[in-house]
Structures are given as C-alpha cells and as structure tokens.
C-alpha cells in the first residue's frame, strides 16, 4: 500500500496517512463496504489500499467475533471471587434503624436492608422496576440527623426512583405503589413511614 510517510506522534488532519493520489486513508476505510467509486476503480493507489484495508477488515471482524466467545479470552474465576470478596467486605450498610427492644438488646435493621425491602415491595407491583432508594429522617426541630446516628424510626421518609412500562397509567400506579410499599414495610419492620416520594425517572417500552 503506497502511503506518504509522516513523523511519529498523533498527526493532525493534514498529516494523516495519505495515499499517493492524495486521498485520506480514513476516507477509503469509510467506504470500504460500498462498491468502489469511479476514482477508486481507476486509481492504482486506491485499489491497492482498498484491497489491503478490506483484508484487514475481514480479519478484524473475525477476531472480534472469535474473541467474544473464546473461553481462553475470559479472565479466570478467581478474578470475580476476589472482586466480590472486596465488595462484600465493603458493603455499605448505612445507618441502623432500631425496631424493638428486648431484654437481650435492641433489634435493628440496616438502612441497606430497609432499602432492599422497599425495592422488593415496589417490585411486587407488576411492571414496576425499582431503582435507587434513599431514606432521610429529619431530626428534632426539622434538622437532618447526622449520618452516624440511628434512623429515627418515627420519622422515616423515603425517595424511591422507579422505571415504569410506558403503557402504565401513572396516577393510579403511584397510589398502589405507595400503599404496597407502606404496607409491606409496616408488616415486616413495624415502621410506619411518614413520607413516600416516588420519582418516575424512566419509562420503558413493552
């Protein structure tokens, strides 16, 4: 393939690899899947470059497909195990929410478990895909409680983000969703939530 030489480094547009006929190699590549143009049919540089690039495109395509399914080109199972070990060790449980006191001590639930319960509750409504959920409690006098403090279970306010099917009627869905989340959380934890904010952040096609 006859191309003009250029210095090392990233060439600016006017210094990109050009064929003897002056064409940019990128242009030849861009039309590689199309039949040759009138110029390309007659220009020896272009014909040679097209043949070279077509050859490269074929091998590249084969490599792309092969790589994806080649079991040798997957990381060993230890990689996942090591990642998950760290993830489990560093799981973010958040604050504790005291549920009841017994003679043996306090029974509480972590903020992370509570949000998992909320997402589970929301997902019991067909079509609702629960996404992120945050719990905020306002401390006495309306100030935000410091992050290290336990959740004030008498004043639990949540914001739940969901994706809904585009065919779902949103107003009645919000009513059912609030009822469902409120009821399941109350039954499972005895927490009666003060506020349930639901953000419909995405609609998906069905």
């Amino acid at each position, binding site marked *: *393939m006859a191309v003009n030489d250029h210095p090392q480094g*990233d060439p*600016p*547009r006017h210094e*990109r*690899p050009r064929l003897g006929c002056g064409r*940019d*190699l*990128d242009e030849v590549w861009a039309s590689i899947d199309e039949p040759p143009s009138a110029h390309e049919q007659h220009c020896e540089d272009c014909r040679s470059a097209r043949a*070279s690039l077509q050859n*490269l495109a074929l*091998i*590249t395509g084969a*490599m*792309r497909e*092969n790589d*994806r399914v*080649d079991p*040798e080109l*997957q*990381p060993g199972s230890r*990689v996942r195990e090591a*990642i*998950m070990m760290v993830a489990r060790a*560093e799981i*973010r449980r958040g604050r504790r929410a005291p549920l009841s006191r017994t003679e043996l001590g306090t029974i509480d639930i972590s903020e*992370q478990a509570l949000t998992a319960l909320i*997402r*589970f*509750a929301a*997902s*019991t409504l*067909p079509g609702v*895909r629960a*996404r*992120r*959920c*945050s719990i905020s409690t306002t401390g006495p006098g309306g100030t*935000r409680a410091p992050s290290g403090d336990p959740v004030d279970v008498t004043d639990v306010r949540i914001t739940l*983000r969901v*994706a809904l099917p*585009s065919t*779902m*009627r*949103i*107003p009645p869905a*919000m009513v059912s969703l*609030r009822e469902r989340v*409120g009821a*399941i959380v109350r*039954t*499972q934890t005895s927490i009666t*939530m*003060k*506020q*349930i*904010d*639901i953000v*419909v*952040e995405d609609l998906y096609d069905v």
Partner: protein
Amino acid sequence: MVQEHHDVGPAGSSRSARSEPEPEPEPEPEWTAEREPGTGEEQVPGLEDLTGSGATGAGSLIASTPATKDPVPAFRSSDSRPSPEDADPEPSTGTAPSRQGGVPEYTGPTSDERSEELDELTIVARAQDGDLQAFDWLITAYQGGIFRLCLRMLNDRQDAEDIVQETFISAWRSLPNLTVPQAFVPWLYRTATNKCLDDLRRRRRRPVEPTGDLGSDPYEDVESSRGRNAVGAPASLDPARQVESQAQMKALAALLQGLPAGPRACWLLREIHEFSYGEIAAIVQVPESTVRGRIARAKRFLAEGMEPWR
C-alpha cells in the same frame, strides 16, 4: 401516617410525586443527572468528565455499545407478589444467579408472571445502592470485554486479570457517586485503559520480557489454537480455512503489539469493542480528531503488516 396521594404528570415526563412537602425544598431532580444530596462524599474524579461528554440521552452510551457486553442471561427480579403477610423476611431485589462454567443461570421463579427481565440502567442503579447481585451481574456482563482489552494492550494474562480486578473494585467504590448510570460502561473502559497505559509506561522505564501470551509468532502453535478454539469457532468453516483464519488472527494479534500504546488502545476500542469516535475520545481523554488520527495510523500499520496474508 400521613399519606396524601397526589396525581403526577402525564406519561413521558419525569415527575416527582410527593405526599408531603420537603422541609428543605430541593430542585426537581433530573433523572439523567441525579445527585445524592448530603452523602458527604466527594465526587470521584473522572466520573463527571464522562457525564459531560455525551452521556446525556437515556441509555445512549450503553445502548450504542452492544458489543462491549458479553452475552449474559437476563437479570431478573423475583417478584412473587406476596401479600404483605407472607413477604419474605429476608428480602432480595433480584435472584441469585448460580454460576455454571462462569455463566450465571437464573434459578428463581421462572414463570413470566413471577419473573421480569430488568434493563441495564435498573441493574446499575441497584448496584449503586449496594445490591451485590446486581453488581455480580455487571461483572458477568463486562469482565470479558475489559479483560480482552487489557490482554491485547499488555499481552500478559496475569497483568490483564489484575487490571480487571482493580477496575471492578474501583467501580464498586465509585458506583454510589456515579451521577449518570449510562456512563458506567465507558467509565469501566476508561479506568481499565488508563491502568493499562500506566502499566505500559512503567514497563518502558523497567523493561520486562514479553510473555507472548497472544502469540508473538503467528505461525507457531496454530494446531493447538485450532483445537482450543474449536468450541467457539463457527462449525461451518472448513478445517483448512479455519486454520488459516486462526493464523491470520494470531498474526494480527502479534502485529498489534508493535503499535504504540495510544493508537493500539484507540484501534481496539473502535474495531474490537465498537465504541464510537466520540466515546473513545471520552475514554482516552483526547480530542476526537486525535482519536481519528490514531486509528488511521493504526489501520495503515496493520493493513501493511497483514499484506503477506492476502
């Protein structure tokens, strides 16, 4: 309990339906640029950059890069729709995929009524909230692609595996602060690419013997690689053609090692991982024109090198 129900807007708009006004009114959240208020954690450097480089449309980056993801079974939610009385005391938002030969299989409720495929943005969102099963699914979907990029960059299995591990651990730590879930995949590739380039720079300062994992001699070991790849290779190819094809791929892999790191990364991201020029510019943090230049240069080098194989 205060539970007033307010109607929300029509379908197609993102609305917040509040049952009670917030004590501190916050701006209407935008779903593509959500921020967690009051987390007290710093934004992770780099995440913001990616979010500002085209990751604005719903699903734009993830949807446009299908080839970056390995085929994985759908992540499903196990919605058994219990009455409040029989809700599972240990709730889970997804079912535990059991792994057979590295590929998870869904083993929970199987009827359509009880299981639902989840979209990737929902899975990323759940991983952001610390859902381990969602994170595990993301590893299954993307560890292969990240590993192959690193292997072709570094030509060393162990180093490539180390970078996959570091990249996902870093992702787990950064996920809560990722403001745009669509930027997750480019973020993974960007982190891995940076780590590869750092590794190569270190090697240049302290040269090491190449391990030749990707076949420094294209003619060597063709027979064994044919046997190895028989599982994944199309069965319809005739054996002679298949051997030739394997040898060509080996030659291309070896040739790649002769490319400078920058053009090699850009070429791999474009031709093997099928990112757009704009996405690659965001991943390698250079202007799009530079990306185009590097890829053109790589193509020229590779096309010339593959001439004997025509």
